[in-house]
């Protein structure tokens, strides 16, 4: 297999804070906007597209196999197959690596890859007691049978299960994602001040990068014809340390360090690229944004899921021989400032590297090469979309800087990490 995996185009919707401007669109709508704009910019006959693969975490209850819904809403033909992939926070990347594997297996030549998430639309769920009550009513055969259960109705029945909270809690270790970040803050001694400073840089870089980010963003209509949205609404212009310092710890009120200011916000957004074999891209003169040269997923203890990137990068080195120092730019997802800083320390630690049987640290990265246009703390983290955004962002930046190699890596709730090695054309 000599053909390279080409990544063509690469657009995303603006990222909007959950419950905000894009709350009226579901994940399938957002994905469809991204796909439409991606394909409008490519002169590829739709008949040459073999499949649409979408990564999405909280799949809309009324859009089972959201990938298929996205394909049809984007105007792709009825006979296009579509599948949804799920690797939690790496779902957007999973779409790309799945596509790459299908191409390598000779099953497809061109796939539309989507990452999409509407965290606004993660539902509240009726709790078990209430569900049981409804079931009792539904099963009843008599009028009295239908009425009687309601006398057992208590206020606690009305407490909903908050879907987004459950989704962000590891059901095995029982910890919320924020609590896993607190663990890393302690293990790697990441102070509150360091976290806030990291968050500030994220905002400052994102604000400074608005024009650059606009190159990857496509404006999309707001729900109900209420206008267009063209920018991310996360990055704050006047962000300062004093404001960040005022925030109370969110996950551990008493002794915590993680606040909503140094963690990524809940966000809505979607991204799309075309992944195809290089020959096809050349045949149709498609704009190649870059190549996927290697990738690795690695797993670890769910309580330390934030260190996933360290494990994935180690695996990438062992598998593909790529050292951290080989990469000109790095996109390291910022789920939490504490987690991102812990990863940087993990990369630099010879002790931690011993776990992987390595006799050297993975490498120390110059922070100036990491997340140069800001990260999820400022831009937001629509979980299914972020993985793909990292790929798109880093490829655009490599091109702008005339650099060659980029690493997109992210931690995955439940205890995994992803690392994608990318190359400019």
């Amino acid at each position, binding site marked *: 297999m000599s053909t390279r995996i080409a990544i063509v185009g690469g657009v995303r919707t603006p990222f909007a804070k959950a419950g905000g401007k894009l709350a009226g669109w579901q994940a399938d709508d957002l994905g469809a906007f991204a796909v439409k704009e991606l394909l409008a910019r490519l002169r590829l006959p739709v008949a040459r597209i073999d499949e649409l693969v979408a990564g999405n975490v909280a799949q809309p209850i009324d859009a089972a196999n959201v990938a298929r819904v996205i394909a049809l809403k984007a105007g792709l033909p009825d006979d296009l197959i579509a599948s949804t992939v799920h690797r939690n926070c790496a779902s957007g990347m999973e779409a790309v690596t799945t596509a790459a594997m299908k191409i390598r297996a000779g099953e497809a030549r061109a796939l539309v890859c989507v990452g999409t998430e509407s965290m606004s639309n993660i539902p509240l769920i009726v709790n078990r007691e209430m569900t049981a009550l409804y079931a009792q009513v539904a099963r009843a055969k008599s009028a009295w049978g239908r009425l009687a259960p309601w006398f057992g109705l208590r206020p606690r029945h009305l407490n909903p299960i908050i879907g987004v909270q459950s989704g962000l809690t590891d059901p095995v270790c029982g910890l919320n994602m924020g609590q896993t970040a607190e663990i890393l803050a302690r293990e790697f001694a990441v102070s509150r001040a360091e976290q806030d400073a990291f968050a500030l840089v994220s905002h400052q870089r994102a604000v400074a990068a608005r024009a650059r980010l606009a190159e990857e963003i496509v404006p999309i209509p707001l729900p109900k*014809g209420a206008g267009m949205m063209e920018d991310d609404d996360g990055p704050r212009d006047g962000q300062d340390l004093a404001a960040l310092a005022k925030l109370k710890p969110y996950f551990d009120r008493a002794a915590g360090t993680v606040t909503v200011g140094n963690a990524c916000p809940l966000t809505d957004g979607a991204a799309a690229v075309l992944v195809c074999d290089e020959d096809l891209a050349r045949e149709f003169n498609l704009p190649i944004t870059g190549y996927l040269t290697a990738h690795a997923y690695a797993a670890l203890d769910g309580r330390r899921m934030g260190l996933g990137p360290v494990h994935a990068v180690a695996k990438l080195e062992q598998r593909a021989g790529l050292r951290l120092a080989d990469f000109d730019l790095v996109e390291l997802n910022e789920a939490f400032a504490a987690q991102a800083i812990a990863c940087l320390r993990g990369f630099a630690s010879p002790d931690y590297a011993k776990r992987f049987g390595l006799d050297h640290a993975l490498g120390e990265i110059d922070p100036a090469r990491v997340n140069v246009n800001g990260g999820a703390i400022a831009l937001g983290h629509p979980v299914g979309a972020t993985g793909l955004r990292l790929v798109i962002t880093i490829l655009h930046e490599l091109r702008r800087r005339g650099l060659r190699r980029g690493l997109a890596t992210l931690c995955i709730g439940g205890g995994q990490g992803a690392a994608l090695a990318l190359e400019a054309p």
Partner: protein
Amino acid sequence: MSTLAVTYADGIATVDIHVHGERMNVLNQHLIHDLDALCDVLLSKPEITAVIFRSAKPGCFIAGADIKLLRAAAGRPEAHPDVLAMANTGQGLFARIASLPQTTVAAIDGACLGGGLELALACDARVASDSEKTVLGLPEVQLGILPGWGGTQRLPRLIGFLPALELIVAGKRLDARKALKAGLVDRVAGAPFLMDAARALAAKPPVRVSRRPWWWYIAPFAPRLLAAVAARKAKAKTGGLMPAPVRAAQVIGATAWSEDYAAEGLALADLATSPQVLHLIDAFFASEAAKKGGGESAPLRQVGVLGAGVMGGGIAWAAAAAGLPVRVRDLTLDAIAKAHATVADYERQVQKMRKRTPGAANVVAHRVSGTLGWDGFHDADVVIEAVVENIEVKRKVLAECEAHVRDDTVLASNTSSLTLTDMAVALRRPQRLVGMHFFNPVNRMPLVEVVAHAASDPAAVERVAALARRMGKTAIVVQDCPGFLVNRCLLPYLAEAARCLEDGAGIARIDRLLRGFGMPMGPFELCDAIGLDVGYKVAKILATAYPDRGAAPEILRRVYEELHLTGAKGGKGFYLGKAKDGRVNPQIAELLPPTLREPGDAEIIDRCVLALANEAARCLDEQVVASGELLDLAMLMGTGFPPARGGPIHELNQRGVRPTVERLRQLAAAHGERFLPCDLLIRHAKTATPLPIHPESVPMPHGDHPAVHAA
């Protein structure tokens, strides 16, 4: 050749109806004769216990009576006895079918309208398939007549007095499920299982209870009263020009449950010989003709729209609602947002009518996307330009567009007043430019003028017409001239109304008179709705193009240039606020010259209507449109010209060509040469022949036409 094929099995006679030489089954003389003969046969076969009527033509049970028979009588009082005889024949036949000893069942798959439904009503039971093509109804009033083969008697008995009144007076059609709910059919089945259901009904016909309402016995005046209310409502809706719904209501009110079939027969004969029926039937034929495509062309896959204003957004919606992906280009995101807002608004309107679920509306909205660049245009089959009405801008936009589309992409311009010839000079391939004139609001106006200029490729013209039809519009091909067809005829009418105003007739009075003529709104209400800026601009362009029809009236200029009024969109025009409320803007009176002689009612109507009709005759003479019937149809759909009057060409024929020419000469002497009759009128006045309605004066289209299937 028989129109019926009967098979006997298991004691059941299955009757397949197949009327030869027609696209749809229609009750013509052959079918009526064969059904009568069938009754004789069935009476001699006591071993047969049930009869099932079905159609051998897919998608159509019986679409109604043969309209050709009707048209022959329309407008001819001397045909009164013939129609009466025809009514009696049908009534007699259906009475025979109703009294057959066998159980009769109608198995309905497809259109079951008019006489077709009256046949089904004469059966003991009815089953309908739930296919999309299945519609049931008695739409006769839409053609200016009423059900005359027992429909006014049998329908109330089956579904009740008020539901029947509503169905017949409004000419409503029901799909299978609604028909089941109304009690019009006894069962609904999937098309493959239709015969199973029919056999089940034949084995066990439903037991019927009297649907006569309880108040019938204590309030004998109630039926007539309720019918009068329905008649008044119908009258208000049609401006009193359509006698059919009123008469139908009266007949039902007077004769329900009376076994009096003579009343409906007499009413049918009275109505069918009136001129309105001729007009309505011709309009129906014309609209059927306009629906048919000119030829096969490659399927449309994608559409581009330039300009995201009200028209651009509306056009984008129409394409998206027709299932086509649309790329809209404009210069700012705010403009793009407006197109999305228009789409959202029109979809909300569709949803309100319960014709779309929110999910389906979302899918339609997704077909529209916008860009500030040219991305997404490379694969457009047709690009429709809807930018500002300025020749320089249009030329620039079209030339730029040409660089970003395929060589075979058709460019369409939604211009209303500029000529295609002027625009085409900007293109490398002028033959791909076609006019596609939509009317505002796009979602409600059924007409699109497809404009061919001298160099237009006929294939491109057909492609644009096909796109318009795909959008559910009636496409009428017209030749390139200032104002095209509709505005060219409408503007003299509006200008004449303005001159009547200058002569001292009041705004409200002129509007009232022309509403009385049958127009849906008066000329000044229409001006306010169009927008006085647009109206004045078009009036100026046409006054320059056709100088012998007089300059644009001074009052229009002053209202726009001095008072800066724009009409309904600015909240103020000839009327304050909504024209419906009838509050005339007092500012207008101050602009008017002193009244010398106030024009009379008949003069006002004649001046306005004949200004329009004279121009229409001129368009027909210049072959701006292919035929008189298409011209009339365009005016019915584009200006709301009263359907009962058939359109300007029918109106001229109805008035008589000779008297009209004389009247025009009088008006020319009194008010100016703009009223001089056109050559076509003068030629026909000399020979005393009516203006041609059908192409090449062929009296009637033959063969392939659907029957009562009205607009």
